[in-house]
């Protein structure tokens, strides 16, 4: 009898443990959240219908786990390319987020979004850009960077501080015959960043129906530039230059706002950049006798002004003016052994920060329209980017159709028209990249 009771107790204990485990598991699963996207797409040139072979994000998964005020977020992705059938795994984001009463604290590999304008944000320099995805919208064109951030919400104020311990650079395609903005060969960075810590701060204030933002960022360019030059004397007397690359130190002061005037929404964003040669790590290099460091100090600015209007049927019409200008530039070269300084005039300045679309033109106008119709089934988008500083236009139209929930087919066209007499014009370089894109998306 006693034996039977003890066996009964053991069974009850087992059932109780199983119940506790199932309760625990259900609690755990209730706090686990996920969303993902599978995307298959092909691009064919409009000129000769040949395929454009570039990598694309085949899978991205948003995995989150919540414990009270703490979130754990990871976004693993798989990138795939058809020509080599090669897939690459990447952990796009992986961070911890804590939400106290006063705001939020985040730590880990993450993507930040600064600026009040849509798409082209000169003040948004926290994350590097992935040039393979330059024509993607939203955070899809950025690379997650390891950072610590804290945001404080106080009445109508928002104060955000970001610290990045390690410098990250833009991903610029190299050796890609199908990508005109890429580089012929992979770049070797001779002078990696020495003082890697980067700091950013942003303050936003709401006054009535206007939001204002002021931001500052101290870091290093996301795109490399020439740091030193070697002059080599050849037999025939020609003195070719051997440039070596590094990253300039850049500080950014940003201003942005959104205001509502009548039926229009006006968004504006401006950034003032000051960039100069950064400290070079020459300890590991034997300094050749013909090595000169480029001393440069350049100030430039980028502005974007956007006007948007939404019709009663929810079609958004947008106009955006992007301007980029160099305000002041000073160059000299300094002999690294003798310290002798000489003026240097042969420099071509390319911004290492700011909106990537500023490289298309110093003054461009974007007009676009987008709308979602038929109860989310049909999505239509159209954009035209016109170069106001010379010849060149980019036209982009796309349509997305979702016959069933979580499935979408997309058909898009990007057409560039440049200036045949100016081969240096970015629009001309991009002409051969004009393509039709066919995509299938499944969200789960």
């Amino acid at each position, binding site marked *: 009898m006693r034996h039977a009771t003890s066996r009964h107790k053991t069974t009850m204990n087992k059932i109780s443990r199983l119940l506790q485990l199932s309760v625990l598991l259900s609690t755990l699963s209730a706090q686990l*959240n996920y*969303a*993902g*996207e599978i995307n298959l797409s092909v691009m064919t040139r409009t000129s000769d219908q040949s395929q454009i072979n570039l990598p694309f994000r085949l899978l991205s998964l*948003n995995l*989150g786990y*919540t414990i009270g005020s703490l*979130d754990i977020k990871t976004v693993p992705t798989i990138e795939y390319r058809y020509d080599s059938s090669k897939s690459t795994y990447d952990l796009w984001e992986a961070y911890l*987020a804590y*939400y106290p*009463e006063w*705001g*939020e604290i985040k730590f880990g590999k993450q*993507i*930040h*979004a600064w600026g009040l304008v*849509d798409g082209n944000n000169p003040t948004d320099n926290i994350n590097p850009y992935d040039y393979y995805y330059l024509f993607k*919208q*939203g*955070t*899809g064109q950025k690379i997650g960077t390891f950072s610590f951030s804290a*945001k404080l*919400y106080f009445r109508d104020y*928002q104060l955000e501080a970001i610290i990045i311990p390690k410098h990250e650079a833009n991903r610029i395609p190299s050796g890609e015959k199908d990508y005109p903005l890429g580089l012929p060969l992979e770049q070797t960075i001779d002078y990696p960043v020495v003082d890697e810590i980067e700091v950013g701060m942003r303050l936003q204030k*709401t006054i009535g*129906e206007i*939001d204002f933002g002021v931001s500052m960022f101290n870091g290093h360019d996301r795109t490399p530039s020439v740091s030193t030059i070697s002059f080599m004397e050849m037999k025939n007397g020609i003195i070719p230059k051997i440039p070596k690359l590094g990253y300039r130190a850049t500080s950014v002061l940003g201003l942005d706002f*959104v205001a*509502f005037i*009548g*039926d229009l*929404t006006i968004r504006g964003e401006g950034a003032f950049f000051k960039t100069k040669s950064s400290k070079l790590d020459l300890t590991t290099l034997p300094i050749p006798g013909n090595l000169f460091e480029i001393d440069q100090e350049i100030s430039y600015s980028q502005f974007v002004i956007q006007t948007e209007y*939404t019709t*009663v049927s*929810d079609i958004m019409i947008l106009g955006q003016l992007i301007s980029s200008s160099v305000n002041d530039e000073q160059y000299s070269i300094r002999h690294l052994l003798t310290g002798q300084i000489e003026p240097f005039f042969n420099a071509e300045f390319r911004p290492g920060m700011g909106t990537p679309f500023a490289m298309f033109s110093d003054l461009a106008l974007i007009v676009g329209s987008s709308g*979602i119709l*038929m*109860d*989310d*089934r049909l999505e239509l988008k159209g954009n035209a980017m016109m170069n106001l500083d010379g010849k060149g236009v980019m036209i982009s139209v796309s349509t997305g159709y*979702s016959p069933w*929930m*979580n499935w*979408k087919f997309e058909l898009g066209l990007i057409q560039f028209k440049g200036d045949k007499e100016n081969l240096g014009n970015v629009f001309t370089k991009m002409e051969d990249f004009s393509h039709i894109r066919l995509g299938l*998306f499944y*969200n*789960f």
Partner: protein
Amino acid sequence: MTRKAQILFLLISCHLLAQPSAQSIMEKMDQIQKPIDVQTTLKMTLISSKGSKERHRSRELTSFQKKYEDGKFKSKSLLRFSQPKEIVGTGFLTWDRLGLEPDDQWLYLPALKKVKRIRTKEKGRSFMGTDFSYEDLSGRYLGADTYELMGEDRIHGTVCYKVRANPIEKESHYSSRMVYVDKENLLMKRVEFFNKKGNIYKILDIPNHVKNGDYWTATKMIMKNMKNAHRTELTVTKVAYDQKLQDNVFTESFLKRN
């Protein structure tokens, strides 16, 4: 005056005096016991009709709402979409102010990782392609309208007071609303929305209410657009009251959590 006419006059006067005023009906409806906070899981179905054919498209969302008695806000609410997966995490926050001051509304778009403030003038626009406008999602302050009792009518099998609500402020996208209030339980059963031209524009039907403990819950809401034969149905699938939702649920910071 004959004796019969005197009696008739007396009866009519008594009837008129017994009828509550439109203002008092709306006040009583406003005073129905409501939870301090409520969390609801909803299924939203967009229905378009072409002839006898109907096409459905569904979304799922969670709504958090909290009543405030701090003299500044009437209530705060947060909506977050969980289906379809393409828009999962999209959130909408409303701070419903007391008085005639415009409400504050924000929309979070996870694909951009950005919170966009919705301006007051945009409130007549459709909320994410539904037949509800941003204005419909804001609660209505009792003092925001003047009321007229227009009689009685039978709606969804219940006898209702028919009250016309005329907005005081110019910002409203409606010229007036006809509100049908259940005489017995003082629950809203139907609202007819009139556009600026005075034509009927939309009809909100609330056919079913269920009493859970002390509180009534509208389990189904149907917003019908009279212009394009389109409608949006909201069905409550889960509801929880007085869970002591913290104030930080109704912040921009929480809006971004998905």
